[in-house]
């Protein structure tokens, strides 16, 4: 079950590349660029491995049940070159993530933007390939 929330992200004019074709598997094969979703919740885990870092977040569904969602990020090397580390988010941090839903209906999203509670964008600047250099 998907949740859509009309979360108004702060109007920061930071352009995040909305396309996430990835070196290791094809974006188009795995994700649906017609299905953007925005979810908010608390970080449960940040997996900092190649080829893609993964951010896991507990999101409340409509009945109040916590569902754990998997958000695929850039590769750790690409994130590092843009100034992020595996310490950039901790379990319990509240974030809002928007991105493209996996085609198979699972709780998997290709993340476009990750925003902290105070509006700061984190892991920003992700580009087409998993570990591209800026």
């Amino acid at each position, binding site marked *: 079950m998907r949740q859509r929330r009309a979360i108004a992200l*702060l*109007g*920061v*004019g*930071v352009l995040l*590349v*909305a*396309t*996430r*074709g*990835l*070196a*290791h*598997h*094809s*974006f*188009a*094969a*795995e994700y649906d*660029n017609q299905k953007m979703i925005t979810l908010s919740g608390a970080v*449960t*885990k940040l*997996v900092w*491995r*190649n*080829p*893609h870092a*993964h951010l*896991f977040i507990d999101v409340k569904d409509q009945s109040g049940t916590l569902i*754990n969602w*998997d958000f695929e990020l850039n*590769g*750790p*090397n690409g994130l*590092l*070159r*843009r*100034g*992020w*580390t595996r*310490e*950039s988010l*901790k379990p319990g941090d509240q974030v809002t993530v928007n991105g493209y839903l996996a085609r198979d209906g*699972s*709780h*998997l999203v290709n993340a476009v933007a990750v925003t902290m509670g*105070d*509006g*700061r*964008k984190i892991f*920003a600047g992700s*580009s*087409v*390939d*998993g*570990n*591209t*250099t800026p």
Partner: protein
Amino acid sequence: MTVNTLSRPPRGLSPLLLITVVAGVLLGTVHGAGAQWVTYPTPHTPRLANGKPNLAAPAPRLNGKPDLSGIWVRVEPPAPPDPNPIGPNLKDYMPAGAVIPLRPAAERLYRERSTKFGAGRPSQRCLPHSIPDAMLPGALIKFVQNPELTILLYEEFNHYRQIFTDGRPLPAVSQPAWFGYSVGKWEGDTFVVQTSGFNDESWLDDWGLPHTEAMRTIERFRRTDFGHMQMEVTIDDPEAYTKPWSAIVRFDLRPDTELIEDICDNETDSAHIEAK
């Protein structure tokens, strides 16, 4: 100080200024100490008066030939941004309207792979991109040129190639390889690399251009100045294509940085990772 402490924003800043400040601080913290050598001055780099690398300086030379040594990244071709990307497309590195001379069976395979958006490509399982596809993701490639051997270190998946320049011929091959077997020589200021002995498993690009074990490639590298290099790659595979065909990839030097290890973990998908 930890990154987290420094990343707490001061109050009262506009969001855009906030981002700039945070980004600057984070970058300064993560990179300023040369963490992982992400920013580290490369020795023997010609510099401008302001200390920045002089990318227009002449190409360095080794034993009377251009020295290709350095960390390079491909220049992305000017294709329009695709909201539904499949990945690098070798056609984008050819003149507009160029036709790739696929044989019918190869064409069918190419269409099938492209129609499925490149699903199932080897890099999905952390297997090599090979030649020329390993040049195409925007990841760093380090050339290490010695008189008798040039080594290519691909940051992507931590793969490498050896190009022997000691005069040996291409070998007989009973064990085809993902990257084949390469020898190189200079023709004037062009480094000409011949490779054969490929297995048939790699895709030439993410859209699925196929090849067979019969493929031989020729890569011609020219370092035009300190910061720029060009490669023309010719694909000669009579079992998949009716004639040889070529593409051109340009490279920009990335001075003052270093490769970061990139071991591709095939098990990092949501089916395999323990979420909590």
